[in-house]
């Protein structure tokens, strides 16, 4: 530890260079943090998918509706624990830019199916009492509270480009009974949920149909078998189904973004490493400039190993200071919420990526320091001292 002062005074010697190097490492890791969050957003749903949950949709595509009567038939299949139907409503509040992902569903069945959607017992009870009641994800509620001063208890008019007008009214109207929060990191907090019975009564077309079913099986090990049992049940009917694991469904959904996601990630990772290369080079350079000093240290009797460690310590310190600060700030920013809630409903840095980032910072320090440290270790005192000249 007594050598730490030496390392620090070396770092302080060219304050400007140290600061600039620190800042560029900081920026690289800030970028890394944001990219992890963006990537996680693209893959949202894959991480939180329950191994015991399936999605059952129409075989042709998700937009083809399924009969609501399938719910009871799926429930009756052996091994099925619970079923909840969902439908895409496509809610718009006042202006198309206030688009909100809205789903009609059955409160009891939905909350039972998705324990990561957390509401207080009071809110759940209120929802069951209020026919046109709706529960709003916290992220969406906070955003709309700020923009449009939504409050609990407000009656909110919605339009739907898909479902047109409800019977006897020009707009859909929902009463906000409460807010739900995500009970699991990375779960979506942007949905707007309202009651299926109200939806069924008020809609004027395609009555008796739903979009897809969430299904929970009793034993996760049997999920694949039950999925094929469900598909077999409806084979050769006018509405054939495709049942798949929730994770596979979410992954397939994410991969629709396809090449773009991969290319953006590819290009940016290339650049992340470019910045690190540049920073590493600068760090190496500042050691090379001190050749004569290292010679003096050695002449004073510092062993080769210690010289190696000192140089490595210096580069690691710099890389970790910049890297940890960058990751930390990125993490703080993601706590503030998503900058584009419609495209990136979930915006958090997964723990795994934070750890990976810390790892990268240490590796950067070691790599940037290794070559100058080894040459410092091998340096011959006479040669080094002659440089002083």
């Amino acid at each position, binding site marked *: 530890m007594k050598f730490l002062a030496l390392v620090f005074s070396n770092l302080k010697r060219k304050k400007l260079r140290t600061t600039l190097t620190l800042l560029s490492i900081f920026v690289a890791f800030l970028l890394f943090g944001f990219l992890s969050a963006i990537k996680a957003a693209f893959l949202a749903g894959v991480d939180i998918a329950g191994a015991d949950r399936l999605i059952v949709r129409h075989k042709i595509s*998700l*937009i*083809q509706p399924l009969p609501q009567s399938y719910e009871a038939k799926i429930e009756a299949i052996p091994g099925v624990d619970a079923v909840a139907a969902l439908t895409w409503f496509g809610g718009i509040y006042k202006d198309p830019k206030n688009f909100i992902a809205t789903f009609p569903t059955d409160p009891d069945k939905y909350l039972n199916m998705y324990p990561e959607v957390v509401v207080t017992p009071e809110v759940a009870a209120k929802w069951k009492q209020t026919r046109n009641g709706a529960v709003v994800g916290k992220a969406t509620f906070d955003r709309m509270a700020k923009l449009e001063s939504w409050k609990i208890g407000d009656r909110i008019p919605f339009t739907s480009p898909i479902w047109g007008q409800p019977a006897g009214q020009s707009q859909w109207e929902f009463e906000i009974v409460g807010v739900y929060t995500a009970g699991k990191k990375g779960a979506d907090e942007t949905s707007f949920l309202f009651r299926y019975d109200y939806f069924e009564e008020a809609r004027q077309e395609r009555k008796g149909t739903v979009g897809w079913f969430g299904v929970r099986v009793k034993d996760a090990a049997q999920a694949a078998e039950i999925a094929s049992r469900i598909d077999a049940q409806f084979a050769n009917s006018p509405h054939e189904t495709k049942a798949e694991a929730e994770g596979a469904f979410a992954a397939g959904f994410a991969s629709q973004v*396809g090449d773009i996601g991969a290319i953006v990630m590819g290009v940016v990772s290339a650049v992340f490493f470019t910045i690190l*290369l540049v920073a590493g080079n600068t760090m190496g*350079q500042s050691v090379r400039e001190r050749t004569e000093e290292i010679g003096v240290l050695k002449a004073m009797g510092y062993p080769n190993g210690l010289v190696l460690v000192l140089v490595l310590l210096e580069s690691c310190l710099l890389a970790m200071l910049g890297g940890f600060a960058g990751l930390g700030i990125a993490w703080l920013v993601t706590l503030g919420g998503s900058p584009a809630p419609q495209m990136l409903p979930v915006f958090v840095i997964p723990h795994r990526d934070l750890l990976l980032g810390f790892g990268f910072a240490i590796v950067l320090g070691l790599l940037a320091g290794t070559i100058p440290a080894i040459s410092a270790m091998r340096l011959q005192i006479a040669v080094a001292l002659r440089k002083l000249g």
Partner: protein
Amino acid sequence: MNWLSQIFAVVFYNLRTIPERKGSALTAAVGIAGVVLVLVGVLAIAAGFQKTLASSGAKDIAIVLRAGADTEMNSGLSREDTRLISDAPGIARGTAGPLTSAELFVIINLPKRSTGTDANVPLRGVSASSFDVRGNIQIVEGRKFETGKNEIIVGTGAARAFAGLDLGREIEIGTNKWKVVGIFSGGGGSAESEIWSDADVLMPAYNRDGFQSVYARLNSAASFTQFKDALTTNPQLKVKVLTLDEFFAEQGTMMTEFITGIGVFIAGMMALGALFAALNTMYGAVAARTREIATLRALGFGAGPIITSVLAESIAVALVGGVLGAAVAWLAFDGYQASTINWQTFSQVTFAFAVTPALLITAIVWATILGVLGGLFPAIRAARLPIAAALRET
């Protein structure tokens, strides 16, 4: 020596000696090349996406949707509606009557060739007159589908991106089999991402009894107002009328804004990183030449020429980086075929990345700005060096 010739002398001297510092100069150039590469690469995605939608547009073709619908997917029109629309004034006429096409728009799941994962591929049921209404659809392989048959033709983009869409093959949609009989191009527009079939065959296969949109070729762009007014004032219809230009301008806004936003943000962050690298390089360059610069000052070179020379070096390095980055971006990305989902239509769009001249200019401008910022402070430091002390430095 006058001021101007001083500048020339010292700038050229400075530029000629860059190779002496090639290590650090290269580092700065590579950093800036990286920024430019990312900026151009990401913006090329947005530009290509927009270009596809823009070439789908037209001023003299109108699209009619149900009032309140924002995409064809959300729209619905009855047979009666479509007849009323075809009777409206302002529509061009062909040999078989008014040039209108009532169309059905659904999606089917097909695996992507690149990943094998399911993608939402748009399937459009069209009327026979649809080809005359669009005017830019060309069969490049095979033939058109025959009316009344389970036959499909496939856009060039879709044929490239999705598995099973090869000429002569059959694909299964629900309980029906459809044969691919032709491949068509559509002037680079979004139609190239689609599969087309006869609307009257598709409708029963999908349990539908209505259409989703009507496309109409107008006499001229000027007839649009007449056409629109006739439809929107008709009490029997509740429709929304747009030119294809307006329609496609709306379809991709979310996507292009998102990509552009993210692109500029990421490139901005990287620019910061590269700026620090450039500053480091230039401070280093000035520090290494302390004695040299002091000598020049002692010889009578003014502060102005010294500042100019350092700035010139920094800009030259940045420009080399900028041109390098732009060239790599152009070689790597221009024309790259990709497909993504357009959330607004919930279906896949195939498109090519477009590295446009405007993007290349943006790249060079960013590089220059980085060069100026990276050189300015080191230049000022160089000019302020106390001559006597600097001459004594080792």
